[in-house]
């Protein structure tokens, strides 16, 4: 289990630095693709590779943030909002757009963040890139249906 990294005074600065690095790699991956499902695949892979390459940063952005009271929680919520924004165009892409509840994007990103937080906390961050197919299927199923999401995940 990873223990606390920065002292309390360092937390905001350390969080923002890590979040900035994550945003850059995820956004670059996302915009490198043209179709929305491919963009999501690329973004998820980039996020998981980021966690594997820098588990301390991934720990800070998830487990440590939630341990830092209202300030840490607010920063973690910004992280989820960033991920949610990348999923939102899926509603236009989806045949099921009218069925999808407002909370969907937030819940998907929260689910993937939980998987990352758990792996990192257990010292198994290196396994994260191999979880990309699972995370892709999880993220795309609500928009594309299970069959299409499974096909795309199989190609990851």
């Amino acid at each position: 289990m990873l223990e606390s990294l920065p002292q309390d005074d360092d937390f905001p600065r350390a969080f923002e630095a890590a979040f900035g690095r994550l945003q850059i790699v995820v956004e670059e991956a996302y915009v490198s693709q043209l179709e929305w499902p491919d963009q999501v695949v690329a973004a998820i892979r980039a996020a998981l590779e980021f966690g594997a390459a820098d588990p301390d940063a991934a720990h800070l952005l998830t487990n440590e943030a939630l341990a830092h009271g209202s300030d840490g929680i607010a920063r973690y919520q910004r992280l989820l909002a960033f991920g949610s924004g990348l999923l939102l165009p899926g509603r236009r892409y989806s045949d099921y757009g009218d069925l999808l509840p407002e909370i969907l994007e937030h819940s998907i990103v929260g689910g993937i963040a939980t998987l990352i937080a758990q792996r990192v906390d257990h010292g198994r961050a290196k396994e994260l890139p191999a979880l990309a197919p699972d995370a892709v299927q999880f993220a795309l199923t609500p928009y594309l249906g299970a069959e299409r999401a499974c096909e795309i995940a199989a190609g990851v």
Partner: protein
Amino acid sequence: MADQIESRRDRILVAMIRVVGSKGYDATSVADVIEEAGTSRTTFYKHFDDKHDCFLTAYDRLVERVFAAVVANCDGEKSWLDRVCKGLETLVEIFALEPELARTAVVEVAVAGADARQRHWDAVARFTAYLDGGRRLNGGPELPEHISTMAAGAVSGLIFDELVAGRAEQLPELLPDLLFALLVPYIGPTAAAEEMRRAA
């Protein structure tokens, strides 16, 4: 006499859950807990090494209690889908009725250090094991191994948000959305939306 000792220990554990849920883990002191429990500092230290030791024991007991209630309420249901729906409904009702317990279980456990977090992961694993039955429904292909962890994380995150916002009592109103988030990876958007409508 043994009953009395156990009763005092129980009162301390219940008080720990209430006080942490109300004040937050960091702000909670042993003095707060013994005042809430109506017991003495001597009695507290007879049973626990310190605040953290007491919290971990209280958290373990909380998880056992919640899990037992969920299982008891949903095991009678015939299908995996009905069991999961009933289980989530039970969880939400418990959290709505006992906001301090909910906040301790979902929010404050993250503050209480690495060993508390490990207990949280263990609790998540127990619930995900329950969800795993949905990975092979209707003769379709088996869903990936980590779907259940992400589904549980999705719902836990939504509940977390409501608790942080002080809206524990309104959690039952969120049940349809929670059901959708939990079920959609297993049964797809159309069927999950149908369950959402049924719960509304």
